[in-house]
């Protein structure tokens, strides 16, 4: 049986707390799955217009440049009301693609991978 958290039917969990919307992403982020994530995040973000949008990558196992596009697109969206995007808990194996993208100039990419990371 597959872990339900990694089920592609649920690639994102959202929670709003004190003007901060946190999105926990999970599974594999590619062009196919990015669409569902984008729709869920944008629906919530456009409604509540949070000051901060935290994208938490701790449960993401794979990401190609579609994930970078996803982050860039949310930066653009939040900029409409001067909100900020924070990228959090990027696993070591995704660090290379994130640094290659130059995302650091568009949003806050926090140092430090997921807490449960024990390898590498």
């Amino acid at each position, binding site marked *: 049986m597959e872990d339900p958290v990694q089920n592609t039917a649920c690639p994102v969990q959202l929670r709003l707390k004190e003007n901060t919307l946190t999105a926990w992403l999970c599974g594999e982020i590619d*062009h196919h799955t990015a669409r569902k994530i984008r729709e869920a995040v944008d629906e919530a973000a456009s409604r509540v217009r949070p000051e901060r949008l935290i994208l938490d990558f701790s449960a993401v196992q794979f990401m190609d440049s579609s994930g970078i596009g996803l982050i860039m697109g949310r930066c653009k969206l939040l900029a409409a009301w001067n909100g900020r995007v924070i990228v959090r808990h990027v696993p070591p194996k995704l660090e290379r693609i994130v640094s290659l993208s130059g995302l650091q100039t568009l949003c806050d990419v926090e140092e430090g991978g997921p807490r449960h990371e024990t390898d590498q």
Partner: protein
Amino acid sequence: MKPINEMHLRFPSVSANEAFARAAVSTFVAQLDPTLDELCDTKTAVSEAVTNCIVHGYRDTIGTIYIDCALYENGRVVIRVRDRGCGIENLKQAMEPLYSSAGGERAGLGFAVMQSFMDKLRVQSRPGQGTTVVLEKTFSPRVHTNG
């Protein structure tokens, strides 16, 4: 040099096949015993190439994507990803980082990722005929202990 093993895939350009394609290629190349990093790099590059076929090559239609994968004795893998889609008018511009003809949600990093995650990248394209991307990587030799 003759490959020690090869495989061929063909599948329609629907986005659900992006995960299938990268998983199939990474399962196949795993027999060369790459490191997890090398496997992850290869998977990411294949995902970019296949996504390009879907988003650009077959932009307004569904076509067939072809993958040919060959393994060589020295740990080298050659992956050819091909479409018979619209082709690329200006290849130099298309390969520039951050350029995207699709706009909006595309980062324009596909070729940059393929280039940096693989040892070699070759792109052949003809407008109206399609695009072929050839990805090459040589996995580092590993010390094996028998028994």
